[in-house]
């Protein structure tokens, strides 16, 4: 038997396997260089980039919750100019796909950042963060209303030199509506989900745990919400879906593929186990092999009703 194929294609871009790292949980890739062989990854999604450098929120920025964590980093990043100058070079020859996550406070900012990234051929795809719940005005509105989501995706698509993948928020009544709007506006793929709105208070000192008050909930706690989002969205759109939320190991990867995702991203898991992605690639390969499945694409959307 030949080794199973793990290749997947999203927005015309071929990934060597469906396992990517999620924005904001993998830095700019550099930090993990000493822990894992980055070239084995399907792809790296880098930390959200904005027009200017952002220092982020004052600490404490994170709090642990049951099977999850809250974060209010506040889109801390070096800004697009420094990103292109200092971070892209490292990413150039890693031998893995580079997806650049772009955030903005208004349409102009998205367009400005994309414009600066255009032409840099080390970039394979743009992930459009229209769903970060941490910064007031920084996108929440874009992803919570179909019309607004349509407008921003349409405008960005008009100038974007790369395949475009909006990243959606789960903090909506019906994610299907937003997903369809993005598809109609020309999105090449969809990434879902970003974090859920959350908050925590210390019952002994009465303090709200995050300086920013609310934060984004991630980790295994949110996986069922993410699986439902992927399943529902897959039933209404034709473009590929990249699943995110609470993925810890290869079993979770398979669950997302069965729900209809073409690829996945590991977020919080990178904090718990720096080599979680590599283990998942190995285990997924073994899983397919032991079941005589030749192609990982044969899992996509194959969940069966009970």
């Amino acid at each position, binding site marked *: 038997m030949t080794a199973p194929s793990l290749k997947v294609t999203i927005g015309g871009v071929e990934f060597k396997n469906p396992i990517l790292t999620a924005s904001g949980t993998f830095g700019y890739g550099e*930090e993990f260089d000493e*822990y894992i062989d980055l070239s084995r990854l399907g792809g790296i999604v880098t930390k959200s980039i904005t027009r200017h450098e952002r*220092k982020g929120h004052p*600490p404490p920025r994170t709090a642990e919750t*049951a*099977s999850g964590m809250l*974060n209010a980093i506040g889109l801390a990043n070096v800004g697009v100019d420094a990103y292109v100058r200092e971070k892209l070079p490292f990413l150039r020859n890693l031998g893995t796909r580079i997806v650049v996550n772009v955030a903005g406070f208004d349409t102009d900012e998205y367009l400005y950042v994309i414009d600066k990234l255009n032409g840099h051929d080390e970039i394979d795809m743009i992930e459009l963060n229209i769903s970060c719940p941490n910064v007031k005005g920084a996108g929440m509105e874009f992803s919570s209303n179909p019309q607004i989501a349509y407008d921003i995706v349409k405008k960005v698509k008009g100038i974007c030199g790369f395949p475009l993948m909006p990243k959606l928020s789960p903090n909506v009544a019906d994610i299907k509506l937003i997903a369809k709007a993005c598809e109609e506006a020309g999105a090449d793929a969809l990434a879902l989900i970003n974090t859920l709105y959350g908050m925590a208070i210390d019952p002994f000192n009465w303090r709200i745990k995050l300086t920013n008050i609310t934060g984004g909930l991630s980790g295994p706690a949110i996986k069922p919400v993410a699986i439902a989002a992927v399943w529902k969205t897959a039933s209404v759109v034709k473009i590929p879906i990249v699943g995110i939320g609470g993925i810890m190991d290869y079993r979770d990867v398979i669950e997302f593929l069965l729900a209809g995702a073409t690829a996945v991203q590991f977020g*919080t898991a*990178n*904090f718990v186990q720096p080599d979680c992605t590599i283990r998942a690639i190995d285990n997924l390969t073994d899983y397919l092999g032991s079941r005589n499945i030749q192609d990982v694409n044969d899992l996509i959307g194959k969940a069966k009703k009970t």
Partner: protein
Amino acid sequence: MPLERFPIPGTFLHIKPNTTGTDPLLRRAFSIFDYDETTGTIEILYKVVGRGTEIFSRVRPGETLDVLGPLGNGFDLPLTIDNLVLVAGGVGIPPLYLLAKSHLRRGFDGKRISYLCGLTTVAEKPMADRVEKLPINLQFATDDGSLGFKGFVSELLRARLDDGSLGINPVICACGPDGMLKAVQTIARAYGKKCYLSLESIMPCGVGTCLGCVVKKDGEEKYVRVCREGPVFEATEVEL
């Protein structure tokens, strides 16, 4: 986890609290306390304060833990300094014990090392058992005066700086609760002494990617990562 080389004092380990399930989810950070050169064995000294440490307290000899590290930037002190003053509060004891041991091992004269150890009360003295065995100048401060100086260890530091018993050009290294570090920082500034602080911070990743553990740079609108640029900082660098 056997370690090949003597670890840099002030570096830490990131330890996964459980093997089954995802709650608690994140690793816990502990300073390296001791190192046995013959076996390569590494030790931590910790206080049970919450769920993670409660789980660790039930781990029995022979069990395996998932440990990442050593991580971070520790104390980087040349042997050419004149005098070393270690100011420890409670669970701040471990990295400063290792620092004293490391300097002794490399030939630094124990008479030039002062270890000011702050405890709540004499009952906590066992935490300093190993420190006591080192040939250095060890002094205690307790909140209730049940052992040594009565009062905060930062006040003990001030008294010793005043009476000159810490020698010339003392380099201060401190580890302990936030309030104590702040006091030591103020004193070091007032007396114009070189000072290093080992900070604590909630550390989701420990390896520099989450940007969760940051502390503010002094005088700048900028944050630095405690896990990566720290946990040891020059006292003038950070705003507590």
